[in-house]
């Protein structure tokens, strides 16, 4: 499901019911790489030399365009807790948001938030 904040009301569109569904990003990439007619939908970090990323509304997905929100389909990773953050979980969240943590995530193809 893609939510597009186009006008005053959000436009909600669905995946076509006859679209293929795979259980992982990797499997989608394999299909696209093997089938000349395929278009797939995967995480930015998984785009490699065997597949080509496409521009949406004339905007190519790059670290900058996704970060600025110019590229229309980006998603955030969320940390969920029960409200009480113990010290171990707290340290982990702090580390993820620290420059070292952000660097590690960027190397895996994710986009920094700092």
């Amino acid at each position, binding site marked *: *499901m893609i939510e597009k904040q186009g006008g005053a009301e959000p436009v909600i569109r*669905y995946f076509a*019911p*006859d*679209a*293929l*569904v*795979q*259980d992982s990003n990797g*499997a989608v990439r*394999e*299909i696209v790489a*093997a*089938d000349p007619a*395929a278009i797939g939908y995967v995480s930015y970090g998984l785009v490699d030399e065997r597949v080509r990323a496409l521009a949406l509304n004339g905007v190519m997905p790059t670290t900058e365009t996704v970060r600025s929100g110019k590229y229309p389909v980006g998603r955030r990773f969320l940390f969920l807790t029960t409200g009480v953050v113990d010290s171990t979980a707290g340290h982990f969240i702090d580390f993820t948001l620290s420059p070292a943590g952000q660097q590690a995530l960027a190397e895996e193809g994710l986009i920094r938030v700092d």
Partner: protein
Amino acid sequence: MREKLIEKGLLLVAFSAVAMIFLIAAFIFREGMPLMLKVGITNFIASTRWQPGQGKFGILPMIVGSLEVTILAIVIGAVLGLSCAMFLAEFAPRWSVRILKPMIELLAGIPSVVYGFIGVVVLVPWIRTVFGGPGFSVLAASIILGIMILPTVIAISLDAFNAVPPSYKEGSLALGATRWQTLSRVMIPGARSGIIAAFILGMGRAVGETMAVIMVAGNALTLPVSVLQPVRTLTSNIALEMGYAAGDHQAALFATGVVLFVIIVILNTAALLITRRRR
């Protein structure tokens, strides 16, 4: 005293296996039934729209998909498996039986991901280039499942052939029937209940298989009209979405499990009735 203890112990273990089935059934019904009643049982099993985010839970395409894939798989498995069992029972020289039987049993030990992987790498591209369509299809899933159920079909129908009294076969041959006539007119009717049981047990395996099917079936949500179209089976639906489902969505997956459970109970009951009646 010791004798009694062992007897009671074994009885307890035997019943704990049965208790397990009842616990599983009770659990999936408890989790799934409330949602099924909320959206309406007819609506749940007869509606074609599955949009969990919008509260639309219709699993008809998956019921049809599961049945299509299973029936086609059992046709493929029955033709190959029965031919193989007939050869092993009647025509194979003893040395070849000694090689073939363990090999077929080995087929049962191959993990389903491996079957799925071979399907993705070899079968799917082949179907795509030869027949067109996306390749991920009812056909791909059925062929993979047809091969996966071979060990079950072969082993049980072979046992059925071996259980036909040798005097039937000897009598037929002595009356001047050829080996093929003996096989088709005496052995197959004699082993009929066992052969049907073999097909139904194979069918049970095909309905329940998940991993290999997810990999080659394409998992689309449409009702598959052609064998070249992608399909999502009941088991695939549960396995694909359980990871990120919550609330009603998760309950709907349990309800999918309820439907699957009912289908499997029907199949097994059919197997029991057929084998009992023929004897």
